[in-house]
């Protein structure tokens, strides 16, 4: 389905060749070259290639598989959440509490580990806390009917606050042997567990969003929740499921991060929510819902990872990277809009001339 690509209604001219008989309606019209170039994924891919090339030139250490493998830690955990967040934002909602869910889940796992829980128990607890936190958000948004941005600004403080209440100025740092596999292990060669997990999840999420009836419903809800409801789609239930999914993915990210750090403080993952949202938006997901692809989010994750890693190799301070990411975010969104506007202006002057 190529219709579900970018932005709002494309300002295409009326189909000139409208045919009277439905019998000859083709399945699809050939996309014009300009539209292919306008696709977000292509734009991002070009960007990724440029970043990759610049980095390779700028630092002799960049093109080293182990270094690149280390570099993926810059984004894999955030990107896992980004996958679920993409679906949530496509459906027209948002979850700003994800980083706090990480903290809450990490504290729960730390407490369980201190009580002697096994690795698999910890995994269950991490995912379970994420699920419960997601359910709380989902309940407030879909059943009480509150705007998700406000709800999750509240739960963002609440969840992390609970983590602070439990842990205070203490630290949990005794995790059972084997737990470090999630955040520090390798599957094969330089492929880290986190990276492989993320790629597998990306494929699954991509299939769900782009190829399943569930994904189709999510797009419909994001584009027009009323029409979706009038079409028999259970809007509230699907949104609830998406909040659960985002919670669970935050739980998973928490497992990975906790395992990678080997310790838990309540301040873990502070400020990640905005980075996750930035990644998703950079990936071409419309913040107001209705469009976006998982592929775009995956590429955006790699772009952000490459940029931070490349800057890191040059010892550029992190805050300068964030200037770059901020500008990138605005530019990547503004360019297609401006491009489309220029095209439209050209078209209308042509029509006047004709």
């Amino acid at each position, binding site marked *: 389905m190529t219709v579900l690509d970018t932005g709002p209604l494309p300002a295409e001219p009326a189909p000139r060749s409208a045919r009277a008989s439905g019998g000859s309606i083709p399945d699809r019209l050939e996309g014009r070259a300009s539209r292919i170039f306008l696709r977000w994924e292509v734009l991002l891919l070009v960007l990724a290639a440029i970043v990759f090339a610049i980095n390779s030139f700028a*630092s002799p250490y960049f093109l080293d598989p182990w270094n690149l493998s280390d*570099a993926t830690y810059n984004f894999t955990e955030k990107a896992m959440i980004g996958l679920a967040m993409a679906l949530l934002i496509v459906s027209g909602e948002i979850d700003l509490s994800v980083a706090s869910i990480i903290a809450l889940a990490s504290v729960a796992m730390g407490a369980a580990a201190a009580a002697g829980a096994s690795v698999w128990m910890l995994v269950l607890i991490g995912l379970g806390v994420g699920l419960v936190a997601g359910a709380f958000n989902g309940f407030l948004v879909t059943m009480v009917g509150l705007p998700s941005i406000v709800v999750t600004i509240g739960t963002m403080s609440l969840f992390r606050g609970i983590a*602070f209440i439990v842990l*205070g100025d203490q630290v949990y740092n005794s995790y059972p042997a084997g737990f470090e596999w999630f955040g520090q292990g390798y599957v094969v060669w330089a492929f880290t567990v986190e990276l492989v997990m993320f790629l597998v999840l990306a494929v699954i999420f991509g299939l769900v969003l782009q190829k399943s009836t569930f994904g189709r419903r999510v797009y419909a809800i994001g584009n027009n929740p009323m029409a979706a409801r009038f079409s028999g789609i259970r809007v509230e239930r699907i949104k609830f499921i998406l909040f659960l999914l985002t919670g669970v993915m935050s739980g998973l990210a928490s497992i990975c991060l906790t395992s990678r750090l080997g310790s838990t*403080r309540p*301040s873990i993952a502070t400020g990640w929510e905005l980075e996750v949202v930035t990644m998703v938006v950079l990936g071409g997901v419309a913040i107001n819902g209705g469009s976006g692809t998982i592929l775009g989010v995956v590429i955006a994750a790699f772009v952000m990872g490459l940029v931070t890693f490349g800057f*890191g190799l040059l010892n550029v301070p992190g805050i300068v990277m964030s200037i770059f990411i901020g500008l990138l975010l605005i530019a990547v969104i503004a360019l297609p809009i401006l491009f489309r506007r220029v095209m439209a202006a050209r078209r209308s002057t042509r029509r006047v001339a004709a």
Partner: protein
Amino acid sequence: ADKVRIALLVKSLGNGFFDAAHKGADEAAKELGNVEVIYTGPTSTTASGQIDIINSLIAQKVNAIAVSANDGDALVPSLKKAMQRGITVISWDSAVAKPGREMHLAPSSDALIGNMCDKLAADALPGGKGDVAILSATATSTNQNTWIAEMKKALPKYPGVNVVTTVYGDDLADKSYRETEGILKTYPNVKVIVAPTSVGIVAAAQAVEDAGKVGQVFVTGLGLPSELAGHVDKGSVKSFAIWNPIDLGYAATTIAYELATKKAEAKPGAEIPIGRMGKTKLDENDQAAMADPFVYDKSNVHEFAKIF
């Protein structure tokens, strides 16, 4: 020969204390000759910011990392990896847990610092007796927590000092300020606020001045002469202490160099030369301590304010 590249990884950029340490590091580098100092750190005091930087330092194959940790536990796995890749790792100022470093250079022994804070408080208390509140940085910073623990341990030596509360200003000026106001309101009998953090002590002094309590409540703790000179003049701070951050940076860099070039080895009891400052000796935890903190007051603060 190739330059020895030593990364001086600090808690956060822009902190006057670490900028001074950077000066010391550069001084050491000049003395040692073929050393390049990479001064780096996150913008805010977070562990994950430091971890990302450690990953890029590993990738750059630096020879040594000297780190002042935001979270001594969270950095361990990535620093371990650095050591596995043959990078010398030491911590200084704020320690990394033992498995994550070859040695730790404490600015002074923790016990000495704790004792010093108690002593400063007792000195500031009229008649050496009264209520004292502690304003810390974040609840997660290792060095603050250790010092506060040591302070409490040493309290029996100062029977007049009565610690009533510990609050956290998170090394944020506004939060520290508001917490100080809270102390002043809740504990009207508090005569001294001890802030073993250079951000906190400034904010506390400001809050005391704004509350019009100069002369009734004194602020003390650890801070930089350059930042506190004004407050000493105003009278909200009588005296405070700090070790010399320039020396600290100098020493950390020199030690990192010695270890990275295999001229010395970090093991209990080892003695490591530190250039103009002589030698330091490692204890059973692979820790070394520098000198006693130095106390500053009206008589000398302006002189040192020009330096750091």
